[in-house]
């Protein structure tokens, strides 16, 4: 059972009745999902002709409601309509519900791609070289493989770079061992997928 959203947020949402158009409502809803911002509060105050303080509260309440819908994965109109108090303006309630339903899939995808994780593999390049000589053997003919892995850290340390790359050298045996390991992962994955 999804937790409720407190009624004061819905009081703030009724300020949207002052919006000049449905598109204006849509804009505020979508932009407030990202997070509170001074600029957004200012533009909203201008659009709705309300004091900035009230606009800021409106933006905050919209943020709470849209994140609630996202967190509990409320996908049907009934589930969302249920959140509103009975006294809420009926057409505005339907409009807000429609906007939330329209944007939920995008928000969900964004949330999942933004979540905390280890650095993500972004790119993979490889090259096979032939080693023809070294200080220990002056003439040889041994293939070796260089792999460059480019990774992006979704939450880099302050002052750190998000993108990093590491290049590793693999002998034939190492590459075979890696493929062995990757094959085992693939087998385990298909067992899981089959379930």
């Amino acid at each position, binding site marked *: 059972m999804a937790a409720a959203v407190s009624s004061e947020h819905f009081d703030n949402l009724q300020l949207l009745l002052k919006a000049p158009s449905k598109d204006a409502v849509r804009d505020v809803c979508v932009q407030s999902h990202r997070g509170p911002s001074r600029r957004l509060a200012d533009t909203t105050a201008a659009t709705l002709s309300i004091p900035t303080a009230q606009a800021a509260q409106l933006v905050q309440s919209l943020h709470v409601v849209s994140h609630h819908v996202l*967190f509990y994965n409320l996908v049907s109109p009934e589930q969302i309509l249920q959140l509103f108090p009975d006294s809420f303006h009926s057409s505005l309630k339907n409009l807000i519900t429609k906007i939330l339903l329209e944007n939920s899939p995008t928000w969900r995808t964004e949330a*999942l791609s*933004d979540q905390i994780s280890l650095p993500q*593999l972004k790119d993979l390049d490889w090259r096979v070289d032939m080693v023809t000589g070294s200080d*220990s053997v*002056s003439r040889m003919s041994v293939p*070796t493989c260089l792999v460059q892995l480019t990774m992006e850290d979704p939450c880099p340390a302050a002052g750190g770079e998000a993108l990093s790359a590491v290049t*590793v*050298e693999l002998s034939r045996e190492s590459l075979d061992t890696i*493929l062995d390991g990757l094959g085992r992962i693939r087998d385990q994955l298909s067992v899981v997928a089959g379930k």
Partner: protein
Amino acid sequence: MQLHFTKDVLSDSVSTDFQNLNKLNEQQFLRLIEILFQFLLEPKETERFMQQLGEFAGEHGMSAGPLRSLMKSVLLVPQGALKKNLTSEQIKEDLVTLGLNQDKAAHFSQQWGEHYAALSSLAVGQTLMVNQLVDMEWKFGVTVGTSEVQKVGNIFLQLKLVVRKGNSTENVYMELTLPQFYNFLHEMERAKASMECFS
């Protein structure tokens, strides 16, 4: 002196050392060569090598010191031969040029032929590698929920690569989605196919 195993000018002591080898009887020479090849196949076992030489010296009434420096000269030949990929024939020629008698040279080169494959792999294995991948560990699982979305069901794969940097190792951690994993597997298979073209 024209030698296959080296272009350097050798000091006179090297020739003297090889001629001294001729003084050993067959059994003594065989044992000494056995000790030598044991060391070549396990080059990290220097203590054992020194110890075996000491024992040999004791058993046959020789001084350990001169025996060790004699062996240092002898070692020059197989070490140079490995670098230059010499055949048994060539090594035998060099030993004779250095003053070793025919029988002993033949025996040495026969032992060389027998152990050549193992010694070559060892030498190739010592070739420098940059950022050599030493180990790979993985785990995969399912993301059950996040602070933004209560119920999720995405498969993730985490890899830890252990890379040798100089004398120490460095761990590299990364995460892959399923499509990225399949791409990784595909690319590694292509790399392997490319390497196999060369063998």
